[in-house]
């Protein structure tokens, strides 16, 4: 998926107007083009999924991540997760980032904060597409040249505006999800 598609409607330029470099984003439990496990959705435990990234450009100081569904929302995309102020050397996000502000961030991403998703919650909330439809979930990762230390609670538009001119690298992965009708008995 190209950066242009990821950032539909938002022009994000890097340092001195240069196009950002791309890097690899992966996950131990998800793959682009394959269905993600249901524990990352409200059909399961609704945990935030783990991500790993590598090959970020030199000079990366902080990282921001948006999880969004361009097949939902009026207008699209529907935002599932916003997290930023991630230390530049973090290498990824562990599974299960807390949704409660009283619970601290994992040590490896100390300082990270969450913005407001489509439901107005500063948390990850996973896919809940209509029964019978397959949706794509874009995890967009931005490498920033500065430790912007943005305030918590920004929505997607505010975040993109704030990182404008600071994006020196971008990576993404796009797993899928489809809801299953529930099993009649407890698991």
């Amino acid at each position, binding site marked *: 998926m190209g950066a242009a598609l990821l950032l539909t409607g938002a022009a994000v330029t890097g340092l001195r107007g240069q196009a950002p470099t791309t890097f690899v984003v992966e996950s131990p439990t998800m793959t682009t083009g394959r269905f993600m496990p249901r524990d990352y959705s409200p059909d399961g435990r*609704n945990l935030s999924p783990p991500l790993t990234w590598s090959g970020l450009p030199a000079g990366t100081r902080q990282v921001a991540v948006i999880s969004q569904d361009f097949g939902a929302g009026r207008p699209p995309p529907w935002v599932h997760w916003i997290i930023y102020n991630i230390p530049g050397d973090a290498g990824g996000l562990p599974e299960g980032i807390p949704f409660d502000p009283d619970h601290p961030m994992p040590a490896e991403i100390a300082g990270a904060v969450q913005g407001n998703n489509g439901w107005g919650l500063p948390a990850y909330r996973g896919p809940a597409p209509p029964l019978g439809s397959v949706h794509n979930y874009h995890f967009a990762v931005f490498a920033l040249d500065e430790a912007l230390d943005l305030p918590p609670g920004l929505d997607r538009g505010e975040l993109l505006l704030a990182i404008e001119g600071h994006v020196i690298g971008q990576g993404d992965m796009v797993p899928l999800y489809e809801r299953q009708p529930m099993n009649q008995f407890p698991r």
Partner: protein
Amino acid sequence: MTDSKGRLPAISRRDLLRTAGAAGAAALVPDAVTAATEETPSTAAAGERQLGTALPSETGPLLTRALANLTARETEILSAMVDRLIPSDELGPGALDAGVLRFIDRVLSESGTNAADAYRSGLAALDTYSRYTRGGPFIDLSTVDQDSVLIDVQIGAATGAGVGFVGGSGSFFNMVKSHTWQGMFGDPEYGGNVNFVGWDLLDYPGVRLGVSPEDQRALEADQLEPVRRSAYDYGIFE
């Protein structure tokens, strides 16, 4: 065991069962409730309507009798949910201490079958959703998982799971939250806001029929003593 105001410490029923150990728990829990927790969800709907079952006192002197409109099992689930909405914590008493369950029970008695049915189907769906997505009955989940479940119920994400939320999981959540807020922060006449714990949480200085300029100045100087009276304690209203 009771504090200076005569209340038991704020512990949840679930904690009570855990710390007491299986045998101890059985001693505290009447047979009807034990039987209820062993049922499978597919037979829950068949309705073991064992009203009037006595429940142990859990968070205070309030729940010494069963709710008139919900079964013991339904009451357990509702209690756990309400406990997460406004928990008892270091800041002070929460919804269970305030008598919100008693408030809701009175609402159901006055409102008739539609409201009671909405509670029953919603609580059953909540429990089914918990089992299917988080791997256990709602009352057995950790508080983190309970909160996660309730967030998904609130935002309507639990609706598509096919667990039986009538009209959407969000409307069930809003109904319970609305009643919980009224029970926590409304006039104690209705059975909630016990000992004015709800009004104290807000620092609401209480129901007065007249507020003089001196009272208002005292309020603005943080010096106005709260009045702890129900509107109906004034003896002039019907």
